[in-house]
């Protein structure tokens, strides 16, 4: 379960604080429910997602995570001077998997299919290789809730197919909170929806209702 309590957020621009993006968002996301975030560009979907994931902090209010929540899938930080393997070890250790480090690193190596590049510094990677490593890292841990911002996976066709299957398996096993502009993807993965409008979040038990509310707001 994730409790979002009265979260306010604004960003610092070059000229002091910018306008409020989120103005008092309060939500309770129950366990084992897949949730889609819906809203116009710039409504604050990614912002809310990052705050839920703990990557960014709210200016006011708080988020309580009563389960293990992932970082935004496929967007984990990589240290460019380290090799893929060293990065994988680093992330395993941060998440407390010192004991089964070898297995998880082996999983990342096999899933990312980087071959001998796995032992080369990340700064030598192409962007496709980077995102393969990042996606494999996200799948290497057993989170209760995964968060995903638009990306399912990059890479070539074969990798994309494999990644999509892994994503589906993961969405059945654990909770998922995702941002997508593609209605089909949202309907496929999510039961509930959150519509973000004018800095407030509205919860819908059914994703279709959330999409309807969103569409009505733009047709006005």
């Amino acid at each position, binding site marked *: 379960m994730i409790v979002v309590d009265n979260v306010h957020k604004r960003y610092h621009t070059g000229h002091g604080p910018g306008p409020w993006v989120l103005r008092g968002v309060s939500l309770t996301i129950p366990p084992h429910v897949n949730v889609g975030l819906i809203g116009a560009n710039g409504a604050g979907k990614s912002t809310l997602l990052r705050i839920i994931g703990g990557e*960014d902090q709210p200016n006011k209010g708080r988020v309580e995570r009563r389960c293990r929540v992932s970082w935004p899938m496929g967007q984990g930080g990589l240290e460019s001077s380290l090799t893929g393997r060293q990065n994988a070890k680093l992330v395993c250790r941060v998440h407390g998997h010192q004991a089964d480090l070898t297995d998880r690193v082996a999983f990342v190596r096999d899933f990312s299919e980087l071959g001998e590049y796995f032992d080369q510094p990340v700064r030598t990677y192409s962007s496709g290789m980077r995102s393969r490593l990042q996606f494999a890292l996200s799948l290497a841990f057993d989170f209760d809730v995964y968060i995903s911002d638009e990306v399912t996976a990059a890479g070539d066709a074969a990798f994309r197919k494999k990644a999509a299957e892994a994503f589906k398996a993961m969405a059945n096993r654990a909770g998922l909170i995702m941002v997508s502009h593609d209605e089909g993807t949202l309907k496929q993965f999510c039961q509930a929806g959150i519509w973000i409008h004018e800095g407030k979040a509205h919860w819908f038990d059914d994703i279709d209702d959330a999409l309807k509310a969103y569409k009505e707001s733009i047709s006005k």
Partner: protein
Amino acid sequence: MAKPRNPFEVTFAVWNALFLREALRRLFDMRAAWLWLLLEPVLHIAFIAYVFKAIRMRTVGGMDIAMWIIVGLLCFFLFRRTGIQVMRAVDGNKSMFTYRQVKPFDAAIVRAGLEAFLMSIVAIVILSAATLMGYTTLPDDPLLVLTAAFGLWLCGLGFGLVASVSMRLVPELEHIFTILMTPLYLISSVMFPLTAVAEPYRSWLLLNPIAHGLELARAGFSDYYHAVPGVSLSYLYTFATVLILLGLLLYRRFHLRLVMK
């Protein structure tokens, strides 16, 4: 549902992970980066010792000039390296903050710990080499040496904490802090004995806590060393404590600013 880890487990896991990563960066970042860690103090020591030998100065305050320089320089490097590394810790670990378990303070404390570890190795290597060259390198009062060195390390940590936050608020300060290290090198009695300075200027120079740490470490090495009058361990530690508390306060107040986009 997996059992959540308690905060201590999370913090220690993060420290462990960051320590290994920082050690890799510090030792293998560039070609033979580990060699330069050792060569930098060695070259400083060799150059200053050469100058002093050339002007026929063999002892300072009753201590052999080579040992006087070695102890002073190692202590100063302990402070400077810790300070500079901690100051840049947040910038150097930016990519790690996408994992919410990693906090800016973790990066700072891990870097300080790593510098202490590396400087101990450098000190052991240099002192062993000096022993082989016939110098008396066993301290008469090891506890005083360690206490003084620890105080200098705390000063470095405190300086780094304060500097890293103020740098984030006013980016230009980074230049000032880096420039500040050179005059500090000159007035901390690293290569210029403070006993040679006349009053009242000596008292002014003794406002600098680093000079206290260096003189105390030398006094710990040799019972016969005449340290500058007025050096005190409590001044060093008071200064370090104030710096660290100020740094922690700044981290507490501005920790969002350090990682927020």
